[in-house]
């Protein structure tokens, strides 16, 4: 019983972290209508940027996460403007394929600079808290708190700021947005910075308790996609709900399956949800 409760607790914690890059993926899909496979590399870029300022400059978790957002967002914007934006008229699949090429290039740039070795963060070691037979690490709580703060910030941004409202309007009806004088390319750029930046933060939050390497983001890709598809591709609240469910599902599955099959849960979920309810739990485009 305790092991199940512990798995659910851990799953919720991991799920909240998966939610951050899943939000990034789903926001880009909602506004630009293509699936960005480079989200994995953006997460790796963020993780490595944060690792660099953490181990070389001694920055703490929170400032490192901000650096990760900036690095992910910047690289995402550069990739979008140089490699992806011009392909949009050729259709969503052409952009998606180009994003795979971007993923490959970024991943190997990181490998070229930092090598293939695992890199660990410089963090104080703290004893786990225990209550009612359950364990919880202070680090887990801190990253989950950061994740919740980011989610709150994203909701507030979309709800109350001019750009947030414009993004929702364009996601809902691009033609109407244009008619009302919204500049589609500017909104696209802001969305990409937000989406890629979120992926960058997600990369560092997920990389904190283990070590990171150039494949970190690509390995997370299946869980991120599963979260977004489960919640409904393009739905912001859906990405959060989907991510928490995927997190719990993965933790429960490794109770009965070998741990190496963890990300197969994501695949099985995608297949199941697409057979039964393709629009996801909360429906597509409910940004």
């Amino acid at each position, binding site marked *: 019983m305790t092991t199940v409760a512990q798995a659910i607790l851990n799953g919720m914690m991991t799920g909240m972290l998966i939610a951050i890059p899943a939000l990034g993926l789903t926001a880009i*899909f909602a506004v630009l209508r*293509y*699936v960005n*496979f480079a989200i994995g590399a953006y997460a790796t870029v963020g993780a490595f940027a944060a690792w660099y300022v953490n181990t070389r400059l001694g920055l703490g978790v929170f400032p490192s996460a901000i650096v990760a957002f900036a690095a992910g967002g910047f690289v995402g914007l550069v990739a979008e403007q140089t*490699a992806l934006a*011009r*392909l949009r008229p*050729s259709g*969503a*699949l*052409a952009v*998606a*394929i*180009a994003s*795979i*090429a*971007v993923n*490959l*290039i970024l*991943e*190997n*740039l990181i*490998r*070229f600079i930092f*090598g*293939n070795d695992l890199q660990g963060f410089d963090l104080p070691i703290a004893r786990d808290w225990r209550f009612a037979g359950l364990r919880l690490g202070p680090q887990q709580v801190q990253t989950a708190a950061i994740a919740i703060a980011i989610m709150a910030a994203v909701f507030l941004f979309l709800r109350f700021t001019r750009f947030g409202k414009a993004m929702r309007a364009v996601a809902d009806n691009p033609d109407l947005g244009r008619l009302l004088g919204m500049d589609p390319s500017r909104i696209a750029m802001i969305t990409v910075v937000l989406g890629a930046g979120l992926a960058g933060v997600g990369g560092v939050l997920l990389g904190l308790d283990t070590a990171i390497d150039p494949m970190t983001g690509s390995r997370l*890709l*299946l869980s991120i*996609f*599963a979260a977004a*598809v489960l919640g409904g*591709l393009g739905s912001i609240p859906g990405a959060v709900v989907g991510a928490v469910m995927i997190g719990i599902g993965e933790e429960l599955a490794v109770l009965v399956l*070998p741990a*190496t*099959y963890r*990300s*197969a849960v*994501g*695949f099985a979920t*995608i*297949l*199941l949800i*697409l*057979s039964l309810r*393709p629009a996801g739990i909360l429906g597509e485009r409910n940004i």
Partner: protein
Amino acid sequence: MLSYLIFTLTLGGIYGLLALSLNLIWGGVGMVNLGLAGFFAVGAYVSALVSIAGMPLPLAMLLACVIGAMAGVIATFATIRLRGDYLAIVTLGFAEVVRMVALNERWLTRGSDGVSGIPAPFRAELGINGFNMFYLGLVSIIVLAVFLTMRRLDGSPFGRVLKAIREDQELATFAGKYVTRFKMQTFALSAAIAGLAGALYGHFQTYISPDHFQPLITIYIFLAVTAGGVGRPLGGLAGAYLVVFFLEATRFLGELFPGLQPGQVAAVREILVGVALLGVLHLRPQGILPEHIAPAPKTETTP
């Protein structure tokens, strides 16, 4: 040197089959299969394992095609009615799961150690060089046969329905075509060809492991098909040979830049592949050998 050339041409043929497989599904119906490496792996493992168990090679390869097609149907029946994005995600996941199974089910696939001692036809009788020549011939004949079938398919009523689906799915439905069934048949056929490529690869290398089926192979084949020309079998085939030569040529990159670590050389090669794919998509999306689109027949109306 000659044996190196023979090896490269054989690999080119095997990649050529993968390119024909991708071209059939992508150029034909406009669906994207990001799990090509997975179907390639399924074919390789099936044919290797059943032939080690004693099944004659032609039957083993046929079984690889059948299981490949079945895997294709299982992996896609959930998504085939949905937007192409979903199929891309599912097939990507499929390839990952295949690799996971190959790594973890040691009783079947011997995990990361890989399967060795895969029977190579007539190797004992012909010797190493003779076998390599014979196998190049075998692969080339199979590639030619599949290529001619694809060319034939392209002009057949079946092929025309596929292109109609690619251009306008609603219109094809409206014309009374059962779109889902056509898509499924095409995906199954495409997966079967990828499985056949895998089988040929296994019996050529005589050793396979999960490392041989990295997602990178899928990107190579995308580069081959886009560079050659999506929608034209000859384009994809030519693109595959080009990509293999490109990959082999960049193997010597390390000698040009002696300061680089081996890991860095590998990274540069993969960056070049990514840049080449982006370059083709931007500069020549129709490829070197663009698809012929026959002009609509003149209608007999008097001006």
